[in-house]
């Protein structure tokens, strides 16, 4: 199998990936201003919340898929997309959160506190966002060097974020859990592939 060169990854694949991940943001911006025939419909605040939330979740699953894909295909360069994708997740969840704080709740601190304390799906969302911020801050080369082996451990938090995000989605639907079930299923497969490779690795280590 062919591998792209470092130059191809840096000058072609990464810029294309950057633009692809930006597409939902472009769509949202156009729709907010009613440009290009796009619209957010009758309830723009909820549509923004859902649209950006679902894209955050999709990109989170893409981030989580890169390692299993590498393990399955041997395409090592895939790992070079991981940080950018993860930061996009943080970007989208931040919009999701700001949309909740300002247009949705009108910065009503009483209502927001009540939500965080009483509504478990919001509590989970905040927990996921907090973890994402920690990973975002420590995603730089500097932090990576500083934390050494602990960096790897810290960044395993991304699995927890995946579980928190899927549960967050699950708990806020009214009745029809088909969509959250599909996303949770994908997450389970992605985590399963890692567990599988981990088991193989352990067995090999025992045999040798």
């Amino acid at each position: 199998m062919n591998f792209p060169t470092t130059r191809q990854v840096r000058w072609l694949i990464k810029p294309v990936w950057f633009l692809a991940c930006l597409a939902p943001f472009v769509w949202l911006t156009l729709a907010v201003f009613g440009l290009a025939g796009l619209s957010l419909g009758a309830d723009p605040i909820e549509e923004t919340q859902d649209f950006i939330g679902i894209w955050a979740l999709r990109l989170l699953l893409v981030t989580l898929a890169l390692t299993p894909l590498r393990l399955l295909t041997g395409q090592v360069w895939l790992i070079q997309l991981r940080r950018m994708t993860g930061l996009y997740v943080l970007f989208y969840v931040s919009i999701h959160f700001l949309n909740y704080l300002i247009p949705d709740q009108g910065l009503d601190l009483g209502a927001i506190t009540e939500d965080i304390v009483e509504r478990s799906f919001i509590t989970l969302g905040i927990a996921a966002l907090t973890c994402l911020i920690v990973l975002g801050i420590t995603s730089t080369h500097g932090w990576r060097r500083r934390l050494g082996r602990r960096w790897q451990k810290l960044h395993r938090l991304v699995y927890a974020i995946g579980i928190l995000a899927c549960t967050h989605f699950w708990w806020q639907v009214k009745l029809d859990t088909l969509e959250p079930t599909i996303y949770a299923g994908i997450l389970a497969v992605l985590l399963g592939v890692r567990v599988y490779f981990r088991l193989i690795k352990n067995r090999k280590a025992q045999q040798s």
Partner: protein
Amino acid sequence: MLIKKPRNIKSSDITPESVYLNRRKLLQAAGLSGTAALLPQVTRAADIPARYRKLEGIIKSPYSTSQEPNPFEDVSTYNNFYEFGTNKSDPVDNSGNFKPQPWSVTIDGAAEVTGTFSFEDIMAPHTLEERTYRLRCVEAWSMVVPWVGIPLGDLLKRFKPTSNAKYVAFETIVRPSEMPGQHRPILDWPYREGLRIDEAMHPLTILATGLYGVELPNQNGAPLRLVVPWKYGFKSIKSIVRISFTETMPYTSWSDALPGEYGFYANVNPEVDHPRWSQARERPIGAGFFASKIPTLMLNGYAEQVAGLYTGMDLAKNF
């Protein structure tokens, strides 16, 4: 029981069309017409697609609110009607094949007159009224809709309910070939709802056959739906094919699916939260991106007229 009329009903309160038009022009002049999501809009007759048949002989009703209705566009594209799918845009997208004509309704149970009647026979003796009502969804958003319909009580009386008729049960049509949402058992189809007989007889309760002066769009529950303005929207069952007078509290779909979250009464009540979200405030649809939520009113602002139905009842228990 004394029925009080709402105070806010002067027809002079209703914004004349020319004011809407001027406002639009002003906004256009200010170069703001492109910011679609940021500004509220208003409906004029010309905004209603010609394919909807106009209803004749509609009289105004003192029960209407003078609040400005949501545009036809909002009312007809932002719907919860799980028979056509669970997203808000599914009903308008997936209801094109639904055939609301011909239609008949079966009336049965504790009444002297029962049987199956055509839509035309059901409606014939009644005069259509325009009832502009607030609509509060259990999901904490709201609209104002200019319904056209008849008082349900007037209709029910024609069938001479007996003294055993303590409740009225309603059923939506089951037609998976035209209602794609019914292919999946999200709710236990048919959708069913019910009212206590005094709620059903209350003059605010109507059977709607239209909105904005035209027949009901399919996505809004054509050809015949209930509207109970002081209850959460899911009580206002759509596309009705059966009305039964019963002695015991009837089965209702949402309280069967999630009994801890939805009750039989489902009265709008800012003091009783849904287990997963607050009911204290609501988002008025169409108010734009930066409009804040507004406080939800007890019984959706109809307390003066209907609170008497619930004297002595614990509304937190009977949610």
